[in-house]
């Protein structure tokens, strides 16, 4: 076999900020959090908010179905070729943290196949409070919890709540119905997170996903600066 060394193959270093042709790759933002906290709904809302100004794509990590990808396709938030589903073998946290190879393949294929992208959202399968993304896969991560999952979650902390670049407390409209104390959730989250930001969000409210979309724009501005 030839022993020639080529530099135009796929990147050997996954976290490299450049594609094999030397251009800057897309910013990758991960969204993680427990089952049912509103990750897919947040991804859908972000796509609607950003798709006119940015070239973006989504990778979903479904646990045992293609429901999340199917939901995004059905809602037509992006053209189908911009949405890819990764299968995780019953272990969603493994696919985003311990063995990121399938997800890296998905983000690289999206960039190769749908042209230059500004942003790729990588949505984790619903998991537990310890599930965080590898820095080899994403540049920044959002952890999504909701008020109905228990208002003690911000106090309990854990890697997602404590270290994610943005914590979203979702479904604030449900707080009065489930007896959750929003002010306490926000104070606990801030106490656990130091300078890291927290957004309280209701996708049904007037502001919708605006605060999270603004945070994404800031990250993108820093990425391309």
């Amino acid at each position, binding site marked *: *076999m030839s022993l*020639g060394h*080529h530099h135009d*193959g*796929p990147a050997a270093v996954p976290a490299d900020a450049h594609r094999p042709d030397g251009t800057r790759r897309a910013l990758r933002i991960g969204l993680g959090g427990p089952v049912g906290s509103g990750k897919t709904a947040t991804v859908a809302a972000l796509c609607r908010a950003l798709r006119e100004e940015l070239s973006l794509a989504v990778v979903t990590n479904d646990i045992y179905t293609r429901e999340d990808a199917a939901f995004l396709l059905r809602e037509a938030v992006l053209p189908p070729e911009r949405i890819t589903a990764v*299968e995780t073998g019953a272990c969603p946290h493994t696919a985003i943290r*311990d063995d990121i*190879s399938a997800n890296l393949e998905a983000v690289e294929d999206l960039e190769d196949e749908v042209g230059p992208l500004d942003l790729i959202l990588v949505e984790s399968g619903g998991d537990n409070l310890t599930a965080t993304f590898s820095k080899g896969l994403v540049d920044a991560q959002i952890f999504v919890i909701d008020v109905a999952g228990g208002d003690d979650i911000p106090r309990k902390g854990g890697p997602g709540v404590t270290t994610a670049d943005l914590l979203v407390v979702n479904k604030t409209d449900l707080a009065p119905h489930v007896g959750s104390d929003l002010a306490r959730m926000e104070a606990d989250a801030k106490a656990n997170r130091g300078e890291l930001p927290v957004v309280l969000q209701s996708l049904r409210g007037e502001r919708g996903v605006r605060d999270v979309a603004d945070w994404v724009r800031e990250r993108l501005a820093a990425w391309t600066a």
Partner: protein
Amino acid sequence: MSRAALLVLADGRFPAGGHAHSGGAEAAVKAGRITDAVSLEQFCRGRLHTSGAVAASLAAAAALGVDPRELDRAADARTPSPALRLVARRLGRQLVRAARATWPHPELDELAHQFPKGAHQPVALGTAARAAGLGPQDAAYCSLYEGVSGPATAVVRLLGLDPFDATAVLARLAPALDRAAQDAVEAGQRALSDGPEALPARSAPLLEIGAEAHAKWPVRLFAS
């Protein structure tokens, strides 16, 4: 050869995508062919002597330096199911990615360049073994062990099988695995001297059929 390097490559936690695959076990569980430790062992023995022997021979041949393009064609010819070919290429691509970061080597770069969407996994495995300073026997062992440990781990998740029982199955398979590794090395050496047509071409029709059906399920835990 470095025994420690072999452990790194053979480790089930080596980040090359294998965790998302059951090696056909999910389809066999659904079809009622794997229900307990005894039937898991039978399934693994079947794999070991059919697709396992073919994969290990390919891996040994690649580790001996047989042209990966010829081996990849030989692997295609021995994999009738399009779903399994796709899986083998996907896993090969993921393995090359992990191996390039772990043991940088021009032959791995060349393989990534020649097969941007992936060479068959055993071909990638044999090349990775070369890059790690390992030999054909090491590549054959890695291939065979992963061919049975993948289904065993998957069945623990799928059936709630006692993990001690699943591990005992793997231990009982060890003598058969030793013999299969020796056969695979000899097949690899024949491929080096006589060409890839000397490689074994045993098949397991139920694995092929099961993989085709599984790829069409709307709800499944594993990618294959």
